[in-house]
């Protein structure tokens, strides 16, 4: 798993690539939180290179989604694929987090 972020004009993009699970969740969490500390006005989770996620990743994302929501910052997900799309859908996240195209 690799994670990196881009910040431009208030827009934070978090790129998560590879397979996200308990073994690397802390790395993803830390990068995400560094991005939030820059006070973005929009957050995009770019997942087109993410091949695998499970409930550990979902827990990390939900908790940041809630925090951003309370700050009034919208969060979008982008690039969901077969496995990640199904996990997002089954978790109910797809009905609350907006998809960016």
């Amino acid at each position, binding site marked *: 798993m690799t994670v990196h972020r881009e910040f431009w004009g208030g827009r934070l993009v978090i790129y998560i690539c590879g397979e996200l699970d*308990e*073994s690397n969740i802390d790395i993803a969490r830390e990068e995400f939180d560094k991005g939030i500390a820059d006070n973005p006005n929009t957050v995009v989770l770019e997942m087109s290179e993410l091949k695998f996620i499970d409930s550990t990743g979902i*827990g990390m994302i939900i908790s940041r989604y809630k925090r951003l929501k309370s700050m009034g910052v919208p969060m979008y997900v982008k690039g969901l694929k077969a496995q990640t799309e199904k996990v997002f859908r089954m978790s109910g996240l797809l009905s609350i987090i907006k998809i960016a195209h």
Partner: protein
Amino acid sequence: MSLINQMKMSVLAKSGNEAFVRSAVAAFCVQLNPTLEVINDIKTAVSEAVTNVIVHAYEEPEKNFVYIEAELFEDSLSIIIKDTGCGIKNLEEAMQPMFTSKPEKERSGMGFTFMQTFTDELEVSSETGAGTTVKMRKYIKKAEE
């Protein structure tokens, strides 16, 4: 349905082994030529069960084992993920969607729900102080040749 193949393995309950275990179980059923969706469902369900052993079962997970068994039938894969850890006191509560005993770790409490929705049968038994056994069955849809 007749048994085609059997597999047993045990690995230390280290989070770095999660990807290995879910890939190994998925690879084991490839001989049935499952669809990609079935393979992904198996990986997801196995990942949840193994994560639970690593995160919840042991005080010192890296010194203890997660036990994996799989049986392959013509139409299905049966998977057992077992530990000899602390066990679950209130299983009914633990299996509720969104229940987690570790909210401070930002766990979603969706592990058992995912095991249930990504497989066709789920059976969990647990004994306090003795450990937990998760049994799952997945019917295999075959990919077009």
